[in-house]
């Protein structure tokens, strides 16, 4: 018997679409709708605090030197600490300090915030008993199945050369899939060491236990350009797919313990 298709929800926040698929016991009842509203509230709060587009967000005020870190919610320090760890582990290719127009570093925690916020939002969905969820925040996906031997979610990887087509499929029971590339927004991803867009790579998809790290590692691997696959191989427990600028691909195997 074919299981019923998942129930889907879509809303927009931070200028991007948030899509949710639910299957199992709570898909369309009060519990499901309450969890979805709570998940969206997490993302809206993250937008309010971290947005670099909102003049009055704490991060914008921090950037202008109007407030100190101690004046911002504790989450800001948490995200900046994650950014520092990511910078260290990516040999500087990833940073929340990106070279500005005059070459001086400007605080931009966006590379950490999206995955981190979506993962926190997903905590509300995880709490739904006997329910599988799959949440996408603008193409960064986190999902789980209530039954560890259940039916995996099938996560398609878009073809960077044609974002309406699927290049590969990751079957995922519980975990996160994030992709970095320039298909939709042009060359906005830069190597933090040089401030320039990396060469040779079209997109990097990373599968990891947490969306925070899948997202950070996808961005960091992408910033490594021709070394993207090599660098990703050095990351424990990650697997992934690198699509090169010429359309060829490299699959990165997880490092077995």
């Amino acid at each position, binding site marked *: 018997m074919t299981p019923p298709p998942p129930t889907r929800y879509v809303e927009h926040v931070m200028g991007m679409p948030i899509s949710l698929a639910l299957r199992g016991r709570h898909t369309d009842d009060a519990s499901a709708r309450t969890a979805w509203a709570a998940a969206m509230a997490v993302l809206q709060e993250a937008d309010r605090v971290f947005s670099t587009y909102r003049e009055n967000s704490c991060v914008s005020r921090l950037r202008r030197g109007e407030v100190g870190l101690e004046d911002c919610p504790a989450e800001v320090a948490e995200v900046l600490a994650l950014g520092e760890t990511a910078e260290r582990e990516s040999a500087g290719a990833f940073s929340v300090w990106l070279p500005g127009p005059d070459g001086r570093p400007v605080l931009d925690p966006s590379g950490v915030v999206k995955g981190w916020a979506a993962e926190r939002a997903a905590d509300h969905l995880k709490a739904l008993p006997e329910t599988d969820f799959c949440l996408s925040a603008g193409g960064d996906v986190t999902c789980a199945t209530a039954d560890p031997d259940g039916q995996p979610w099938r996560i398609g990887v878009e073809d960077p050369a044609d974002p309406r087509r699927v290049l*590969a499929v*990751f079957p995922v029971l519980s975990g996160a899939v994030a992709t970095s590339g320039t298909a939709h927004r042009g060359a906005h991803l830069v190597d933090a060491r040089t401030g320039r867009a990396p060469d040779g790579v079209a997109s990097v998809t990373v599968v990891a236990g947490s969306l925070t790290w899948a997202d950070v590692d996808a961005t960091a691997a992408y910033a490594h350009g021709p070394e993207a696959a090599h660098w990703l191989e050095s990351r424990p427990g990650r697997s992934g797919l690198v699509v090169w600028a010429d359309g060829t691909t490299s699959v990165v195997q997880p490092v077995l313990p």
Partner: protein
Amino acid sequence: MRRIVLWLMSTLTVLVLLFGHSTSTSSRLPAGAESSAVAPVSSATGSTSGSTSGSTTTYTGDSAPTRWGPVQVEITVSDGRVTDVSVVEYPHENGKDQQINARALPVLVQETLDAQSADIDMVSGATVTSDGYVESLQSALDQAGL
């Protein structure tokens, strides 16, 4: 016979893509290129079980031992073209591995597919903005389920 040959090539392509990028090299592999990677896979093509409906046929290869563990691939051929590929058995060292997210291996399709053919639940891609959403693959998926 032609179909079987096509299937063999497709299977090899998939497994080459799966295992071509092993652990130490990061050479760029065009689909189906490296013949050396084919060797451990050949046993997977020894016998097959297939099921047919209309002009669409699903083939399941034997489980093939690899250095990462057993791998079994299933492909769907429609009108002589490979339309879907799935891995029915993954390398794992214990039962818990199936649930360890980070073990997930991608299955590359020989020709890119639209969302419906690929039978996917979500799309991972470069950040989709709200402006671009209407045109996106994820939007098509969401609408199908709304």
